[in-house]
């Protein structure tokens, strides 16, 4: 019965861990994309200014 309860715990732990790791991955990706978007926008602005000169 002890191992029965332990394996139930493992099952719940794995289910939650997979969800939590995926949410963390999404959050990290969100930050990376925001930074990249800012960088590309700055690059476009610079190129537009250079072209006007």
């Amino acid at each position, binding site marked *: *019965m002890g*191992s*029965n*309860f332990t*394996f*139930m715990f*493992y*099952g*719940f732990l*794995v*289910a939650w861990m*997979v*969800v939590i790791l*995926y*949410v963390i991955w*999404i959050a990290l*990706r*969100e930050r990376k*994309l*925001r930074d*990249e*978007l800012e960088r*590309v*926008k700055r*690059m*476009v602005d610079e*190129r*537009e200014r*250079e*072209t006007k000169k």
Partner: protein
Amino acid sequence: MRLKIILVLSVLSGALLAWNLHTMFLNVPDEANQGAVFRIIYFHVPSAITSMIGFYAGMFAGIAYLARKDLRFDAFAASVNEVSLVFATITLITGSIWGRIIWGIWWTWDYRLTSYFVCWLMYLGYLMLRRAIDEPTTRARLSAVLSIFACVDIVLVWKSIEWYRTQHPGPVLSIRNGGGMAPGMEAPIYWNLLALAMLAAVLTIMRMRQQTMQREIDSLRRYAHAF
């Protein structure tokens, strides 16, 4: 508006999951033959159903893309298939842990397990295919076709426990005429299904937003290189 939907669904899903945990551990007794480990079903079955619903939603989005050539359908298909693959992974791992105690083995190549594993591999291939192709319309077209093809396997997964009696238990839910569970034990499965479906919706919306950001980055890059 999108942020409000994400917030509302997240709070509802979190509250429902917490309430379900309370019900599973304090209101539902151990199963007579399986003991405490039977509670894995409360994540295993809802995760499986959530993944299948998601894969079908991805297939319909793929068909919509092929019909309309609108990349928003492709973004939805990619997001929902990725999220569904996460839930499919949970299903496979929790099932394996349950099998180790009840069957004495981690895995067996029976019809249900094998067809679901093939499904998991196909959607993993779907995500790899998307990473391998840079051109957005080619990527969208090929992944839509693969998504439609992969969905055929979902029917085999769903029906396998009725068509073949092997290692995996037959239908236990009353909605599938299983009748193998007491009503008090069955209800938390549906509540957890609702909670996981809402969580999947939140994750899909977030991934769709990221797909939109990625498209914006790609178009700005093309614009910048045109100078």
